[in-house]
């Protein structure tokens, strides 16, 4: 299940719903990404995405993870638009019978979302704006899958 949205969401509300609907799972893992203000300079972040491709790309990731780790449920929420420091950017939740599968599937989804879902982050600070650069280590992280 996938939501790409501009609106804010509460990770706790999502986790409660997800856990209630996770079927015969014994293990639920969630990841929540939050806007960080590294140096105290960040005013806000702007996230741009590619409507249409975003849904297809993440849908394929969810499908692959669900098959590979035999997930009983899987959910991804990713925001776009303007976000202030401390706001929740995105969330992944996975449910499986066993903890290792739930953890691995969540990490797999995060690694793919980082480098293969069409989102671009721009940091707008008091001293100017710049596009967040991709990191080689995020590209390398895909190799383990």
């Amino acid at each position, binding site marked *: 299940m996938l939501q790409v949205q501009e609106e804010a969401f509460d990770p706790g509300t999502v986790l409660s719903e997800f856990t209630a609907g996770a079927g015969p799972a014994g293990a639920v893992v969630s990841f929540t990404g939050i806007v960080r203000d590294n140096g105290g300079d960040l005013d806000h972040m702007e996230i741009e995405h590619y409507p249409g*491709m975003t849904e297809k*790309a993440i849908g394929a990731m969810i499908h692959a993870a669900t098959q590979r780790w035999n997930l009983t449920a899987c959910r991804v929420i990713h925001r776009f638009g303007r976000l202030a420091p401390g706001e929740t950017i995105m969330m992944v939740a996975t449910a499986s019978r066993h903890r290792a599968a739930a953890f691995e599937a969540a990490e797999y989804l*995060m690694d793919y*979302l980082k480098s293969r879902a069409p989102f*671009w982050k721009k940091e707008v600070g008091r001293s100017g704006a710049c596009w967040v650069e991709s990191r080689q280590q995020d590209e390398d992280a895909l190799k383990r899958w």
Partner: protein
Amino acid sequence: MKLDVVYFAWLRERIGIPGETVETEARDVAGLVAELTRREERYAQAFRDLSALRVAVNQELADFDAPLSGAREVAFFPPMTGG
């Protein structure tokens, strides 16, 4: 052949438009990039370093040597930074 070409992030800012419809006879993505580059300096600037760019054909990631047969939409953008 008519194609929708779309741009994202700093590529969009540098070219100055989010997308456009182009008439092209290019056979592959690289051919399309060559045509765009010849148009105007802002395109030449934007496409100068292809290793810093990614491309999607019909909303699927592709290589720069991917053929354009069957393509309706080609997107150019920097490496993605989701999550």
